[in-house]
């Protein structure tokens, strides 16, 4: 046990090579779309809405299609089933998410400069935790919108879970929900971090062999 713990320590203290450091910079770059492009998109088609009602979720704002009119339209429709209005103020994520992603950017660069495996492990573990939390938070938000329905609403529907990935038929609407570039870039950042770890591990194995 003692030996293996010492081995882990030695590994964690080991410096990382140019390759993994370059990957850390790449992971940093993958965070930038978070500020520029949507993380998620929901598109809803109904016979009356052949062009669809569109909702883009950024890390810091909601943007409706058709110059934001679609949000209003979605809220008007949802009021019949007693769903809470979609409102930017209700998304606490918008307050902390861009800040946290910024911190990760700095941590990735720090790991790239200081260049020890331990830095790499730190950012990778924290980033995966962050990703999982953000996903849960989004899912929970969706769940709440679909389940906290006003019991006095004109149209009573069974509580429902909007789709997180893919397609679902809700009443007369076909709802499509997909991650967007911002989310995919974050996923790629996680993959790149993992890859950096793998390369660092393989090099350390080679050198200690």
């Amino acid at each position, binding site marked *: 046990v003692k030996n293996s713990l010492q081995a882990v320590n030695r590994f964690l203290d080991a410096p990382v090579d*140019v390759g993994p450091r370059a990957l850390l910079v790449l992971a940093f770059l993958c965070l930038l779309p978070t500020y520029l492009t949507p993380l998620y998109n929901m598109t809803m088609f109904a*016979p009356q809405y052949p062009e*669809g009602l569109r909702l883009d979720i950024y890390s810091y704002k909601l943007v409706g299609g058709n110059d934001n009119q679609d949000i209003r339209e979605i809220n008007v429709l949802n009021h019949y089933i007693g769903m809470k209005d979609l409102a930017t103020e209700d998304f606490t994520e918008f307050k902390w998410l861009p800040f946290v992603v910024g911190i990760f950017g700095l941590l990735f660069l720090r790991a790239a400069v200081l260049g020890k495996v331990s830095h790499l492990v730190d950012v990778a573990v924290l980033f995966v935790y962050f990703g999982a939390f953000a996903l849960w938070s989004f899912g929970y938000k969706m769940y709440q919108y679909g389940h906290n329905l006003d019991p006095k609403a*004109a149209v009573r529907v069974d509580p429902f879970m909007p789709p997180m990935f893919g397609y679902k038929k809700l*009443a007369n609407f*076909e709802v499509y929900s997909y991650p967007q570039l911002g989310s*995919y870039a974050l996923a790629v950042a996680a993959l*790149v971090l993992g*890859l950096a770890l793998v390369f660092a591990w393989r090099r350390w194995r080679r050198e200690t062999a």
Partner: protein
Amino acid sequence: MKTRSAGTILATAAGIVALGLLAGRCAPSAPRGAKKAAAVSDIAAAAMKVYVAPGDLDEYYLFASGGHSGQVYVYGLPSGRHISTIPVFTPYPATGYGFDDESKKMLGELTWGDAHHPALSETNGDYDGRWLFINDMNARVARIDLRDFKTKQILGPIPNVSGNHASSFVTPNTEYAVVGSRFSIPIPKGTVAGVDKYATEYKGVVTGVKIDPKSGEMSIGWQILMPPFDYDLGDAGKLASDGWVFFTSYNTERATGKLEVTSAQRDRDYIAAVDWRMAEQLAAKGEGTMIGGIKVIDPAKNPGLVYFMPCGKSPHGVDVSPDGKYVVGSGKLQGVTTAFNWEKVQTAMRNKDFTGDEDGIPVLKYESIKDAEVPVGLGPLHTQFGPDGHAYTSLFVDSAIAKWKLGTWEVVDKVPMSYSIGHLAAAEGDTVSPDGKWLVGLNKLSHGRHITVGPSQPESSQLVDITEEKMKLVLDFFTEPEPHYAQIVKADKIKAIEVYPKEENKHPHAIWDVKDAGVTRSGDKVLVKMIAVRSTFTPTDFEVKAGDLVTLALTNIEQTTDELHGLGLLDYNINIVVDPGETKTVTFKAKKGVYPYYCTNFCSALHQEMQGYMIVR
């Protein structure tokens, strides 16, 4: 070694990014079931079906209500061509309606109406082509004579009625057109009570408008006091259910305020079944209490007169099948329509199979009277029928029409409507013998279906071919705002005249010889008898004094089809149109000056010369 590994790392990373982007599904541009463009052969087949070649005639009339335009619009089917407008509740300068003395008097003080549900007169439950009745929300019913396509009578405002929406459905031999109050108020009109007293002091009423079988003249037949619900639509029973008339109602919560919520709290509202023959007998016996100048019958004191059939909440239409055996009603917020079995309804009435009462009116047990809940789709509103036992239900939320079978309750087909269909009309589809063939969806939204005309959008109507198992959408056309219900009748059932025969003109001021034209005076009342014939008004000028009360009687002595003349008197609100053989009068106070009058309705090569002067000294 080192460079290779760095290269590998970068290549792998690039691969991951590319894979991520490839896997990344983005927002779709169209729904999964999006229709591919129709094949050219399908378009050609549809075009052949709806194409009425120049000079050829349509096979059917579509009489479409004009909603708050107050008019009735006449379209030809299958072409969808707008052929004529029949002004009813609103002045219409194009035909001079609402400008001459007679039509002005008929309109009364109101120059607007909200006309929703036309009802063609029936004999033995089939359209007979004699009259068309239509409701106005302002508690009125109008009769249009289909012999000349003119509004002949406006009955009302009918006492105690506020918001005549559940109207003007006729009984199978046009004994009655019905009237149902969408708004309950304290009655008689003029009584005041706050909305906090709504549940007890506000009342609804349903009324039978008696129709003279020869002349079509309307009068109030009977009126029944009802709980303060909103009576929405109706239909008369036929054959098996003859003698009854049905009304849907919503807000049986007796709620006020934000009704979109407060009136949608109970799972069921009601269809009221009214025994109109019994109402007729009670009225004949003088039963009822005088309210607002007419006898109003209380159903609580007359058991058997009214029953409530529970229906899905906030129902819109109620429609009786051609054999009269089924009454179809749907909660408009649900996914099913309910077919009530009339035999079971009668059994439940006999056995007093009630679950309670509303102000003394028994409520029948839903489970005992329904035959089926047909899963037609979301937002079912109205149902029409075909000749082969098929029913067609409009679905507002699904924006589609569902075709289903009576008896087996199987949904056979659906056709999408663009967009948000309200009423629908099948060819003679509410009679005892529907024609099938054509079905028109009267849609509420048209966005994107027409070249743009700005924010005020037309209503789109769509023609569906129902001759085959699968329904086929074959034509978009645009109906004047705002069609609610419409009826489709075979063209050969309408026998209209195209000129008024001279011998039928009994107007006291009609003249047929220019020698009789001219001015006669008694005191400050002046009668100007005038003749219009191509291309002269006689007299071509006349003199009156300022302050005179002038009655101008204009006779068009033409007996030729399409030779209409108009008379516009400049700077006065006067513009009348006389059809061949017709006499109209217009009365006004003369003001000093010289006023030209001229023919407004093009008549001939020298139409422009058809003019004259009124000299007022």
